[in-house]
């Protein structure tokens, strides 16, 4: 790219700090920190959402909180090197789309266990082994 006189380059570092609210989804995140799968049920169509929706896909806003068993089935799983946001935890992680028993949707989450995570395998929501910088990292799905 022609810029005329030689373009200079400087190194900059910016550190940002946030005080981050979790809003109406707070019961969900509090559940994750306690190892509890807390979702919502639509009073109009009966769909159960985990992660929760506060407006159902049927259009209804009449949803209430409920607790699921926390057990479910892996629908799809993917493995690769990753770094968890903000925590700096790096390694080879397995992530998946998981159908929790009783839920109408699929949950994205980290899967832990000694065996390969394959579609159809059973998992259970459990507290993560290390401290989390965000409630979304407070749990993993452990292979049963």
């Amino acid at each position: 790219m022609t810029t005329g006189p030689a373009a200079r380059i400087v190194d900059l570092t910016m550190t940002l700090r946030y005080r981050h609210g979790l809003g109406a989804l707070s019961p969900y995140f509090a559940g994750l920190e306690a190892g509890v799968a807390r979702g919502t049920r639509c009073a109009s169509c009966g769909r159960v959402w985990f992660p929760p929706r506060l407006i159902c896909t049927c259009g209804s806003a009449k949803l209430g909180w409920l607790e699921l068993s926390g057990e479910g089935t892996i629908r799809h799983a993917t493995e690769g090197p990753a770094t968890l946001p903000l925590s700096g935890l790096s390694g080879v992680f397995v992530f998946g789309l998981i159908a929790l028993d009783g839920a109408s949707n699929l949950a994205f989450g980290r899967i832990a266990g000694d065996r390969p995570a394959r579609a159809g395998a059973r998992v259970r929501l459990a507290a993560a082994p290390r401290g989390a910088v965000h409630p979304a990292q407070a749990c993993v799905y452990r292979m049963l």
Partner: protein
Amino acid sequence: MRPPSPSDVLIAGTGMVPFRRYADGSTPRDWVRAAAGEAIAGAGIEPDAIDAVVVGCESDHFSLQLAPGALMVDEIGLVPRPVMRVESGGGSGANALRAGILHILSGLYRCVLVVGFEHAASHLAGDDARALYALSFDADVDGMAGASAAALYALSFQDHMARFGSTMEQCAAVSVKNHGNALKNPLAHKPLALSIADVLASRPISTPYRLLDCSVISDGAAAVVLARADFASATGVPRVRIAGSGCAADHVRLGDRAEPGRFASKAAASRAAYAMAGIDDPSRAVDVAEVYDSFTGAELQGIEALGLCADGAAGPAMLGGAFGRDGRLPVNLSGGLLGQGGPPGAVGIAQAVAVTRLLRGTYWEGLQPARELRVGVIDSHGGIATVSIVHVLERLS
């Protein structure tokens, strides 16, 4: 082909800088000045003829510049024109183009400059850039849990594989085609001569995707001048109009979608664009397409969502050469995001640049098909096809 009508929105001028990882100290201001200047000159107009400016850009954190619209309209020398910045993730450039079209269709403006840029590749450390991209999805629910673009696209394509039996060999054929097309495109970031075996042997990123299944993050800028037909200057090149424009959204979380492997928003956006263009059967009407190939499988999913072939048929057709330069429907002759590169604020506009030049018959030697092209489709999205933007371009007589 029909002649232009006075109210047609024409792509009157095009410009772009090479998509690269710029390490020469140049900045988006430099790239935007160059791309916009080329587009204005190509339109055969003076800058004073521009009525309004639309700027596409995804992230202020990449460029370390908030409110880039105001900066760029000044940088180009177009103060006091009205300016609007548009963001739609990877579809930022495409939705900026759509906003420019809507500016003209509103009747308020006759000539609009649309310019998009991103400083995504060389400015911010790679890990920091990936951490920001992870916030492109549902940041609290999925992003903070560790979701990356690679992981989510991989899970989406696994769903496609489970439903249709699509394979990684089919995906590898996308990589071979697009990186190969980039060899003949001097503006491309990642020209590579590859074999299917090369792709299948590359480093795993997020199963089933490997390194050569993934598009590159690029720096760059692209621009077009849009003008009403009764205002545009005659420049001696064939005229290309915007025949259709569509945009649609899907649930942001893959798991909330009925079919995580299907790009439903792209299907809806394309239906709207085809209806506006009067196209009943896109698989027959479309001569050339630029499809958002952030990952190889996404090109297959995109081709199907755009109605360019039946669900599940894109993979076999890809292996059969249907989407190569001399195939039934050339896709991503520019190289796409895989080969040409992917600065989010510029990609959708660069697609318009490529297809306009293809329809005019002035694209790069070795990439311009021998047969005459009349109708082209350009397609971008943000998220995992969470917001899709589709345009139909048509060459006029």
